[in-house]
């Protein structure tokens, strides 16, 4: 077959159906929005129950993480995520799913070498680079702050 990689790449682009971007975005917007709305409802409810704002916020995160973990274990979070995409990936519930799902999957390889070693296999990079980004921003902020009159 006389065919360059560039020519084949062009053929492949034509033959491969694109992701349905508009539909994916709508799903992500509404499901992601619904999770955030639930967060707001929870925070308001905790506030009404007498918690100060920082405690109410922490309790909201804890509740969402716990809820996501339960739904992940039931296999429902994955079903929703197969449609919602970034809508379920970006909120804190997505992070919980990324930690709980390998913990379940690798349980059969033992508590230490399975669950312990593999639990952060997906979430690990987010923690590493999230911390790196916060360190870099901390340094930038250190120099910017005097100029901001703080």
């Amino acid at each position: 077959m006389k065919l360059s990689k560039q020519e084949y790449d062009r053929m492949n682009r034509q033959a491969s159906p694109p992701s349905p971007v508009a539909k994916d975005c709508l799903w992500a917007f509404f499901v992601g929005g619904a999770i955030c709305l639930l967060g707001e409802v929870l925070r308001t409810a905790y506030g009404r129950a007498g918690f100060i704002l920082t405690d109410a916020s922490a309790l909201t995160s804890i509740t969402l993480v716990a809820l996501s973990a339960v739904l992940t274990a039931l296999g429902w979070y994955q079903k929703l995520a197969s449609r919602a995409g970034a809508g379920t990936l970006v909120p804190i519930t997505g992070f919980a799913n990324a930690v709980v799902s390998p913990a379940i999957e690798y349980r059969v390889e033992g508590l230490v070498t399975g669950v312990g070693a593999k639990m952060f296999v997906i979430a690990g990079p987010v923690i590493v680079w999230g911390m790196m980004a916060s360190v870099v921003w901390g340094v930038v902020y250190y120099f910017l702050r005097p100029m901001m009159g703080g």
Partner: protein
Amino acid sequence: MGDTLFFERPASVMGYASVGGKREAEGPLAEGFDLLETDTTFGEKTWEQSESRMQTLCAELALRRCGIDAAGVDLLFGGDLENQCTASNYTMRGLGIPFVGLYSACATMAEGLALAACFVAGGLARRAMALTSSHFCAAERQFRFPLEYGGKRTPTSQWTATAAGGVVLSADGAGPYLRAVTFGRVTDLGIKDTNNMGAAMAPAAASTLLAYFRDSGRDPEEFDRIYTGDLGAVGSALAMQLCEREGLRLEKIHEDCGLLLYDRGRQQVGAGGSGAGCSAAVLCSHILPQLKAGALQRVLFVATGALMSPTTALQKESIPGIAHLVAIENA
């Protein structure tokens, strides 16, 4: 001649069996399967052992349909998708047949069948068997993400079948016969997307088909069907285009195992099925029964494999493809 081996005393298909999981039971080929298990654990604690159990059930069914036991088989060519082909290794620990372990990803069934055909036709074995499997859950955790992880699949991605297929070949018998085999060459046109394996494998399928028709001097019209293995919707379209560029028109008689196993309209399987068990199960639940019944007389079975590993994919290497061909005829 060329890349193709033609047999004067071809091996005959003695018996075969297929086993599938839940999604396969919901698919259009369900009726052709010998065993469908809606419990995809197959009663085992790990997915690796589930796959091995499924493969064992398939081997036992195939032997039973031949009316022989394991001692009646001289040699078995088998493989799967798991690291170090462990599903097959554990199956063969129980079966006790002399074993040749193979890896050609989703092309393993055609590779095993072709080798078994060579050994029987060449007089090196009286009876030889080819056996392969794949399990969605075992493959997911090895090649992609944990099962419960919420991720989105692209429309070009393929669904690993939970299925197994096994074929017993014999030196004598009433057919269908394995008349010729073409071992493929590794082909790579630079596709790097592991969610588009059909596109990565299509050049290999076209290369092997072109080699067979060049070597045999035959006309595609002489065949009732050409079954490619696991190209899916994208790979099938590309393979047909690549063949047509070289003057080989196959659209009218072409079907793809990855498109036959599932109903893409009803079942969420992306561009179609894949996995070492996909083409094996379609062969044993759909193609061979039709040959036996006389509905088909002459077919080509061309299973294709994407030969990357999760490591090479992360290292941004392109995906090498391979396709092996077996010509199966009633006369």
